[in-house]
């Protein structure tokens, strides 16, 4: 049922794309990949799904690829879907999986037999810096104030964020560690997503909050939450990064695409080529702008190296948080 509806909608979208192309002829394509199978290891409507849809829309609009098939396998931060992708798509040259930093952590925490190291890294597409906030009425005016309180008594500083072992928790743990505070002593209060965590902050129930910048952005703009620092290399929207404030902690909640295990080098290069082309086109740039995503693009071997490093770094901090073995 949903498939027919999707096809109908896709036909509509395709027609729209064709119209917007106006009189221009589609560039001739001599590639082997005729259609892309996008595997989303999360429910429709979430961040990974949005990334997948944005890829579809951009590739269609720029005439890079016109046929897409979506498959969702939600659960456990991607850990339910991952084995399905690995077993179901092995060696298949036109399958891509959306994934990211969250999956690295989820794999370590769930002690899953398969992890993100078992798939083929293609490209890192977007990244989002995290932000540390306090409620409007909080006595902490700067990151220095908050750290001073944390050092004095870590148990007295409660942190609201997403699920334990997720990117928010990892970031809070990294910050504590950088200050010589045992990450395990951090009073981390896990909420089911950014909405409830924001509500706890707005209602003054907790000391501080951690989340992706976009999640808190509007509350920060409205002055209801005070942003103390972001986790990127540099600051954004007038908020300085931790690094700029002399604390060497950098963390991105990145999202990227992965190919099936066991694909040939030629197949891998071809898939990477699609994304290289997409990122260079106008539609993807526009998507990054409307969505407010940071386009920290990285592809091929450099991305593979990055993923390996992230696995080591994130598993390490999770061990110190007492969440991974």
């Amino acid at each position, binding site marked *: 049922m949903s498939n027919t509806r999707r096809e109908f909608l896709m036909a509509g979208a395709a027609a729209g794309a064709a119209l917007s192309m106006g009189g221009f002829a589609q560039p001739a394509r001599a590639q082997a990949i005729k259609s892309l199978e996008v595997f989303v290891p999360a429910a429709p409507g979430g961040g990974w799904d949005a990334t997948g849809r944005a890829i579809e829309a951009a590739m269609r609009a720029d005439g890079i690829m016109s046929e897409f098939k979506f498959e969702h396998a939600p*659960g456990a931060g991607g850990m339910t879907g991952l084995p399905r992708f690995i077993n179901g798509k092995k060696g298949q040259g036109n399958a891509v999986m959306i994934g990211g930093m969250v999956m690295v952590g989820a794999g370590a925490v769930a002690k899953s037999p398969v992890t993100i190291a078992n798939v083929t890294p293609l490209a890192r597409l977007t990244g989002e810096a995290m932000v540390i906030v306090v409620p409007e009425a909080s006595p902490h005016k700067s990151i220095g104030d908050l750290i001073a309180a944390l050092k004095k008594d870590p148990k007295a500083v409660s942190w609201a964020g997403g699920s334990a072992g997720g990117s928010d928790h990892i970031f809070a743990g990294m910050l504590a560690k950088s200050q010589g505070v045992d990450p395990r002593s951090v009073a981390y209060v896990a909420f089911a997503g950014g909405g409830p965590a924001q509500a706890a902050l707005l209602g003054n129930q907790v000391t501080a909050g951690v989340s992706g910048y976009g999640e808190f952005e509007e509350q920060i703009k409205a002055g209801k939450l005070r942003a103390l620092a972001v986790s990127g290399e540099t600051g954004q929207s007038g908020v300085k990064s931790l690094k700029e404030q002399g604390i060497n902690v950098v963390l991105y909640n990145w999202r990227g695409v992965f190919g099936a295990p066991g694909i040939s080098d030629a197949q891998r290069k071809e898939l990477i080529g699609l994304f290289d082309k997409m990122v260079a086109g106008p539609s993807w740039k526009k998507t990054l702008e409307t969505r407010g995503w940071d386009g920290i693009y990285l592809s091929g071997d450099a991305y593979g190296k990055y993923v390996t490093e992230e696995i080591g770094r994130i598993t390490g901090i999770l061990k110190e948080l007492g969440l991974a073995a």
Partner: protein
Amino acid sequence: MDTFASLMEGFSIALTPINLLWALCGVTVGTAIGVLPGLGPGLTIALLLPITYKVEPTSAFILFAGIYYGAMYGGSTTSILINTPGESASIVTSIEGHKMARRGRAGAALATAAWGSFVAGTLGTLGITFLAHPVVEFALKFGPAEYFSLMILCFVTVSAVLGASTLRGLTALSLGLFFGLIGVDLQTGQARYHFGILELLDGISVLIVAVGLFAIGETLHLAATKKQEDDVIELDGPVGMTKEDWRRSWKPWLRGALFGFPIGAMPAGGAEIPTFLSYYTEKKLSKHADEFGNGAIEGVAGPEAANNASAAGVLVPLLTLGLPTSATAAIMLSAFTSYGINPGPQLLQTQGQLVWTLIASLFIGNVMLLVLNLPLVRVWVKLLKIPAPMMYAGILIFSTIGTYGISRSVMDLVLLYIVGFIGFLMRRFEFPTAPVIIGMILGPMAEQEFRRAMTISNGDMMIFLSKPISVGLLAIALLALIGPHVWSWFRRKEAAA
């Protein structure tokens, strides 16, 4: 006055033919998916998200809101007719609703659900229009300590569904608490009771357990015990509501709306809790308390009104603060962002016209839903004329397909039938099934809120007694728990004297 003028402007946009068509489309789709067990409004809206690339924002939100309200209407239909709740907020409806249907009063049950939904939906929408800011301020006062105390109050409501034997009722509750423990613990990230099965890491869906216990269990039980020729339920009385039904329904509708709207607006309130509270209240207040468990109309009217009012409540933090407090609201939020609209505290200022048009369309959608659903009652009750064996087969197929639709996972189907078999055994040995559901919904919420409160207070239990709202809720819980016993003890003493 300003509110009124803005609302009128909203109506002028919502009443354009194209937007009326979107609203109609939304409520129809919503009713349909509400009827199907499994496929809920969140998933449906998520599947329709790609239309945001083509349709203008106002129309898309009118469509989404229609689906959301429609699903709340439709959910009651299968609960009443075949004991298969379409979504988790209709679970309580099935307790009395299906009993009414079995007594030949399906028409009245469906009608009171439809009217109750309309009344509560309209009151809720009026609440969004005029009370959004005070309500959201009240809702934000609820922190983990207050939520935990609210859960304690909710646990008292279990007593309304325990049945004849307290021991059996509490056993069923414990089973529900156990089901609720399965999966990754939010506070530590560690998996509990997953037996190495990856699919169990996210826990078991309440809906699967409800459908398994109620629909599959009940079907197996009936098929195993009843002679099948005489099992066509004859309609008793008129299809609609009698004067007596109206008299008994209107107060539960209003009370249900009073529970639903503010709790729906709370960030961790949800749609199920107000239905529990409403059911308990109606049972305690009813002059026909003996009918509860046998199909009391108040037990349908109250919870149905509560779940529709909570749907309106959920939109309050979304529209005033940009806070998504339910899965469906989160998906609607992602629709906002794909238009480049940032819902937040300034949404009403920056997108005033969109918000007011959306609210106006909610009023219109409610009327459409009533007009759509009342005539359908006549069609639905005909379903009950289907001979029993075919009906049972139909319920099994319907539940199976609906469950598969939730996540297209074979594991869910296996679980459905395991739970269904447990439900069969429970029916066979006369254990009540409703406490399982209540335990499963309340248990994890109470646990998480308790641990959040403990982390924040650094392990000090006094946090529950140092906050006025929390103390108030605990006092009400205590009163509800021991009040009736003290009361009857005094009465007996008086009678003896």
